[in-house]
């Protein structure tokens, strides 16, 4: 009975939307820059899941190609972001986003 239910593409898309919402909430709430980066990764993964699901739904391989490029850009983004965090943290001690007020007007 229950085994007859097949998860449709809509289920996957809704799961990705929930994951994106959780990531958005995390970016706005957490104050540790590293954890904020992790929440951005959550949002990127939600988008990747959406792309792969839609590639299957519309039967087009280009959806999976886009995910490949998103992964490359995500890797580059994490490398640069963590480099910035390391460079900032070397000069000051506090590690919350609230402490980074150098550009405050």
């Amino acid at each position, binding site marked *: 009975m229950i085994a007859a239910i097949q998860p449709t593409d809509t289920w996957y898309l809704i799961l990705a939307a929930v994951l994106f919402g959780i990531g958005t909430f995390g970016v706005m709430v957490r104050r540790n820059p590293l954890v904020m980066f992790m929440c951005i990764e959550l949002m990127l993964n939600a988008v990747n899941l959406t792309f792969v699901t839609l590639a299957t*739904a519309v039967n087009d391989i280009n959806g999976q190609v886009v995910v490949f490029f998103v992964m490359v850009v995500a890797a580059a983004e994490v490398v640069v972001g963590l480099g910035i965090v390391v460079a900032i943290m070397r000069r000051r001690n506090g590690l919350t986003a609230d402490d980074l007020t150098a550009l405050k007007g």
Partner: protein
Amino acid sequence: MELVVFVLAAAMVLGGALGVITRSNPVHAALSLVLTLFGIAVMFVSHNAHFLAAVQVIVYAGAIVVLFLFVIMLLGVDKTEDINIEPITVQRPLAAIIGLGIMGILIAAIVAADDVLVSRGSGIAATTVENPDENVRQLARSIFSDNVFAFELTSVLLLVAVIGTVLMARRVKSSGAGK
């Protein structure tokens, strides 16, 4: 069977995501992120995206999370952060409203556009026992023919990112240059 896989993978994804935003220790948050990434990889497999599932595990769970843990170790910030203090008083309710709002809008759009999901592409070949590398073959054919320019640009992007990070994280030797 597919339902069981979906439910288990969804539990991994959502449990890991909630762990990332609720654990006060950054190391625990990074390990929760691994759980989410593995759940996403399982979903990629159930969508016949075998190559992307492998890349997900290697690049995300292997490289990116290790990089996070490395930076946490390097900076020595694995102290538990007190997440009960709230510097801006209305921040969390507002963030919850915005997050739930985005979630609600997306779900409404997904449900409303349910009938748009019709097959109109040139087709994704299913991986079978006879053709175990069909997904990789098809993906490579698309990347190295239609998208070869974008592929070459990603190599430039990675090179720029590596050089930029090395320059940024380098310790400045001369005393006056760092100011």
